[in-house]
């Protein structure tokens, strides 16, 4: 069993708003081993980004962590003091965001932004010279498959294409990610061929450096070629967890099955009907299984009790009462 890098258990996060309390995350679980690549698929609003923000502790001010633990290398991130937390962010984990244009400050050159991060994360104790910082920055850009790194350091974000900006963001995150890299929909704003290229490059980088990755996407195909373990998330709960091939060949949760069927296939076959009903509002969400209101095989108990994750062998877990009793 690989050494556990990140172990999220039973995470509950609520948000306080004018209308009341949004009960978003409801018992989320997630674990990532060393050098393991894990993916989370789920639709908008299901809580993927919220979970990541909880791990990095960058949730909004009106967020309340109502329960659960996030164990990173043994210590609970939620209990960490500010100093330890900063050190963690500087030297251990990092995040790539969805929109590289928004992640880069438009009024500063790439070099200024990248060098700031390098100075902050690589040279924590000794004060480096300007040349050392620059060299390190160039090195990072090269490792993110960027040609002409010197020219890029002297450019502004608007002078680069979308693909190059995303590579710059990858380079920036590599400066501080020594153990864990969280990639939140990194290819969404890019063209298909560029996304394909970037994901291949990212996979190479990650494997070269022995990083663990959490890849979030709502593009199921993009995730498939990249990760070894997949989580399916819906309305703030983890519904299913399985090794990648197992999930695609044997999806068991009704939601997962529907989701995979709803993806249009290159081989044709028409577009099947989506799932009836709509995602419940976090304000008025009922207890019990959060998918029950849209599930065709829901039982009485599904509406009242929230199913825990049942182990069905092969590293495959599913949160559904059809696979076990509470």
């Amino acid at each position, binding site marked *: 069993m690989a050494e556990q890098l990140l172990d999220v258990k039973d995470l509950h996060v609520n948000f306080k708003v004018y209308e009341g309390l949004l009960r978003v995350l409801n018992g989320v679980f997630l674990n990532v081993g060393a050098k393991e690549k894990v993916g989370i698929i789920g639709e*908008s609003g299901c809580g993927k980004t919220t979970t990541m923000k909880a791990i990095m502790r960058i949730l909004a001010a009106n967020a309340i962590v109502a329960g659960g633990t996030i164990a990173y290398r043994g210590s609970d991130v939620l209990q960490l003091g500010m100093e330890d937390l900063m050190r963690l962010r500087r030297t251990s984990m990092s995040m790539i965001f969805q929109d590289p244009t928004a992640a880069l400050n438009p009024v500063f050159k790439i070099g200024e932004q990248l060098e700031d991060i390098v100075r902050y994360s690589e040279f924590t104790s000794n004060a480096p010279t300007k040349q050392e910082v620059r060299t390190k920055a160039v090195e990072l850009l090269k490792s993110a498959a960027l040609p002409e790194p010197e020219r890029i350091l002297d450019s502004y974000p608007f002078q680069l294409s979308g693909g190059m900006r995303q590579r710059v963001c990858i380079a920036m995150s590599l400066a501080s990610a020594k153990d864990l890299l969280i990639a939140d929909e990194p290819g969404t704003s890019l063209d298909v061929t560029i996304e394909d290229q970037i994901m291949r490059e990212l996979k190479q980088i990650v494997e070269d450096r022995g990083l663990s990755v959490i890849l979030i996407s709502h593009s199921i195909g993009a995730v498939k070629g990249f990760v070894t373990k997949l989580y399916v998330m819906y309305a703030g709960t983890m519904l299913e967890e399985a090794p990648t091939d197992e999930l695609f060949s044997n999806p068991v949760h009704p939601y997962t099955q529907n989701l995979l069927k709803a993806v249009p296939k290159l081989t*044709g076959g028409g577009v099947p009907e989506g799932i009836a009903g709509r995602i419940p509002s976090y304000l008025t969400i009922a207890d019990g299984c959060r998918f029950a209101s849209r599930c065709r095989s829901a039982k009485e108990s599904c509406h009242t009790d929230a199913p825990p994750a049942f182990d069905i062998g092969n590293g495959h877990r599913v949160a559904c009462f059809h696979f076990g009793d509470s």
Partner: protein
Amino acid sequence: MSAEEILTVKGLKKYFKTTRGIVKAVDDVSFSVMKNETFGLVGESGSGKSTVGHVIMGIYGPTAGSITLMGKDISVGVGRRSKELKKRLQIVFQDPASSLNPRRTIGQILELPLRVHHLAPEGKYSEKVFEMMDLIELPREFVVRYPGEQGGGEKQAVAIGRALATGPSFIVLDEPTSALDVSIQAKIINMLMRFQKEFDLSYLFITHNLSLMRNVAQRVGIMYLGKIVELAGTPEFFSNPLHPYTKMLLSAVPVITPEEEALKPEKIMSTGEIAGALNVPPGCSFHPRCPFVMDICSKVVPTMVEYKKGHHVACHLYPSAVSSG
């Protein structure tokens, strides 16, 4: 023009003058859409596919070329189009958040086209709006809500409802589901397909999602830097792609089943960035990225040939039609 064609685009050009030079967004595009057909236009960003849709709608007037809808020439900007034409031709935009006025309620948005064209007797507009809400499967009480309060799928349903309000014959669908999740996309696409049958519609479907295109269009054209480089019936397009760019795009599509994986052409690596429409390379605009590039490719622009019946391609690898067919 054959009796079955509803929209014909001939030699369409749209050039934009910018401070940095001329952007040839659409550069000599020709195709036609048959009645009750869904014609797909696929391409990456910068290909000009959205601009084609915009020029057809009249958001821009064409720089050259002609557009014919049901026999009538419509190659002018929207300001100079007749009201009758505006009833016949509608569009659904990609981003529902910006295509619906955030300060107008859903009811007001749906009512506007009805009022403009006097499609209901005075006092009966609310009724018609409710009918439309039923059609797009939204609860009637949502008429007083603002678009910002709804999810992407619901917003897009409103945009579709607005497009249908005037009883059009032709709808341009500009990436209608690109901003939506997979299961919502399925719902919207099914809705569009149902409406096509029910209301006798023809669609120009623009998207970059090849897997989606496979399942909605009967014929597909693929664009690169303002030109159509290949055009064929859907099954033929996906099982026998000819142009290197088509193969490149298809080989990069993320798929989830082994059958799809088997269908994909051999991987063609994209080298370098997509050239901007400002500095279109001479000759075949794809030649800097093409793994099969020949001498002639950097000098002469390839012409579109009907290589096989119904299968057109513009590439020096296929200089003329196959003798049989």
